[in-house]
């Protein structure tokens, strides 16, 4: 009974943290708890949340993907390139997502067939993807993108009064939540992360699960990249630098274990919200960005230690 209670507390721990921070900020700043700012905040976190959703899958398989930030930049540069050359925006976005899928699968193949540790494999591809982005863009932002309403909507549009990136984030969240908790694939993701050998011996093609997971993450990174490109109306060659760390932080704050097999995507959404709320709130409180970084680091540490203390 007691065990179950503490388990449940652990489950909603991040949520309690979020609520606490929100209440605190609402007291400290008048502009924080306004509809306008909340929507603004949700839009701000949507990029990180999308990447972090993919990262959740990867980390559940006991892996890590450091290449997401670079992949975001490469995917958005290539998509922007296609758009500026006058390609149909739907096709360009579709191809962009496919590129993300393929490059993610490449990560997965290096890790499974090449037997390279995920940290090393994606560290290498992180550098390669960034280099490829700089080569392709010649280090300059890609501009002169499509005027297509669809493309413009992705980053800047509103549906009723809700920003489109927020809608995309929520839809992706619901789909991934369903996949993780209600499909065979989702169960196998947990199994591979919980004990890869046991999963394989139970008839799970662990390698295939991993490749799929990295592909998914690659595609989500590029989706985030396309939204960012639409928002900035240009693809920045340096976009996404260090985004992998924010995504990992969101996953970890959300209570997913880096050892794999244990965690929830809901936690990741809350983790992304916590990170977003902190930086938005500290901005509103006019706290220097130097201190903001200290606060963010402290929150990550606090969340992880809280997670450890229940083991």
């Amino acid at each position, binding site marked *: 009974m007691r065990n179950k209670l503490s388990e449940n507390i652990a489950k909603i721990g991040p949520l309690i943290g979020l609520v606490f921070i929100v209440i605190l900020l609402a007291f400290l700043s008048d502009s924080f708890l306004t509809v306008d700012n909340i929507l603004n905040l949700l839009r701000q976190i949507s990029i990180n949340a999308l990447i972090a959703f993919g990262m959740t899958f990867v980390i559940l398989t006991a892996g890590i993907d450091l290449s997401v930030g670079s992949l975001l930049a490469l995917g958005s540069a290539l998509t922007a390139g296609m758009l500026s050359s006058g390609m149909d925006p739907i096709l360009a976005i579709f191809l962009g997502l496919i590129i993300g899928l393929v490059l993610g699968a490449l990560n997965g193949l290096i890790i499974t067939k090449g037997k390279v540790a995920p940290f090393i494999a994606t560290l290498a591809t992180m550098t390669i993807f960034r280099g490829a982005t700089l080569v392709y863009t010649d280090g300059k932002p890609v501009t002169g993108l499509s005027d297509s309403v669809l493309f413009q909507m992705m980053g*800047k*549009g509103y549906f009723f009064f809700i920003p489109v990136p927020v809608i995309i984030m929520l839809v992706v969240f619901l789909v991934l939540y369903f996949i993780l908790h209600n499909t065979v694939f989702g169960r196998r993701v947990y199994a591979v992360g919980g004990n890869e050998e046991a999963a394989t011996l139970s008839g799970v093609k662990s390698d295939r699960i991993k490749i799929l997971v990295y592909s998914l993450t690659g595609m989500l990174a590029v989706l985030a990249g396309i939204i960012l490109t639409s*928002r*900035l109306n240009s693809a920045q060659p340096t976009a996404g630098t260090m985004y992998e760390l924010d995504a990992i932080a969101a996953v970890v704050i959300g209570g997913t274990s880096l050892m794999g097999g244990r965690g929830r995507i809901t936690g990741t959404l809350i983790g992304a919200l916590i990170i977003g709320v902190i930086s938005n709130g500290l901005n509103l409180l006019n706290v220097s960005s130097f201190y903001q970084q200290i606060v963010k680091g402290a929150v990550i540490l606090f969340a992880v230690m809280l997670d450890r203390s229940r083991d």
Partner: protein
Amino acid sequence: MKRIITSFLALTLLIVLGACSLDKPGSDSDDEATDDNATTEEASELKVGFSISTLNNPFFVDLRNGAEDAAEAEDIDIVVADAQDDASKQINDIEDLLQQNIDVLIVNPTEGESVVAGIEAANNADIPVITVDRSAASGEIVTHIASDNVRGGEMAAEHIEEILGADGGKLIELEGISGAASAIERGEGFHNIIDDLTEFDIVASQTANFDRTEGLSVTENILQGNKDVQAIFAHNDEMALGAVEALESQGMLDDVIVVGFDATDDALVAVEDDRMEATIAQQPDLISEAAIQAAIDIYNGEDLEDFIPVDLELIK
């Protein structure tokens, strides 16, 4: 029955599509409020938001300090947000600033194109925008305040020409972040002069991203193939100081002159010690002072020029 379903679906689709828009909801309804503000409030109640590209570089720290000092002197409120050189964080910062009832927004863009979304957000909220140092590609800007970078590049080139004399020589150009307006303009000014001088030869133009460490490594690499270089022009002092370190470790510091840009504290010391030949002094405190002044002018309803150049100075 089928027809009913079809028309229902069509209606739903219409509503859904109708609900989509690229404009922020309610964005065009608050003109009045802003006008009221302008006439009723005192200058001392003016609140300025300042989105700065980074604080990882002494120039921008000076820029911020100048703004804060000027704001204090004029007794106005200022809120600063640091984008940490991340284009999308800057947009978030601007949005956060707009949440705080600022009257004027000063933006120092990380990059000209990407900042537009932020500028447009401010335009939608009817907050006047001033850009400093780097300009924005589009959006409504009341005025842009910056050093005359093209002129600065020319000053650097002229100074190198003067030192090396008619014999000319081989030059290295360390470029700033690709695409950054200041890098483009400084390079343009530099090339304006050097390209017309046949006896001068730029053996390498490479980017070191305005960064001292990269300035060091890029210079080291270039020097491997070009031992007979006579002068280095860097688009900022950080890279110039990196180049000085590279030259020093190669024992070439006495043979090569280095001209930087920005006149940061470190660079000024280096010029004094003869480690650097010269630096083009941007005057960040003057830029931000001008920006604060412009904000007050806007607030008081005065008209401003599109571009307010701030003087540069060669320090040797």
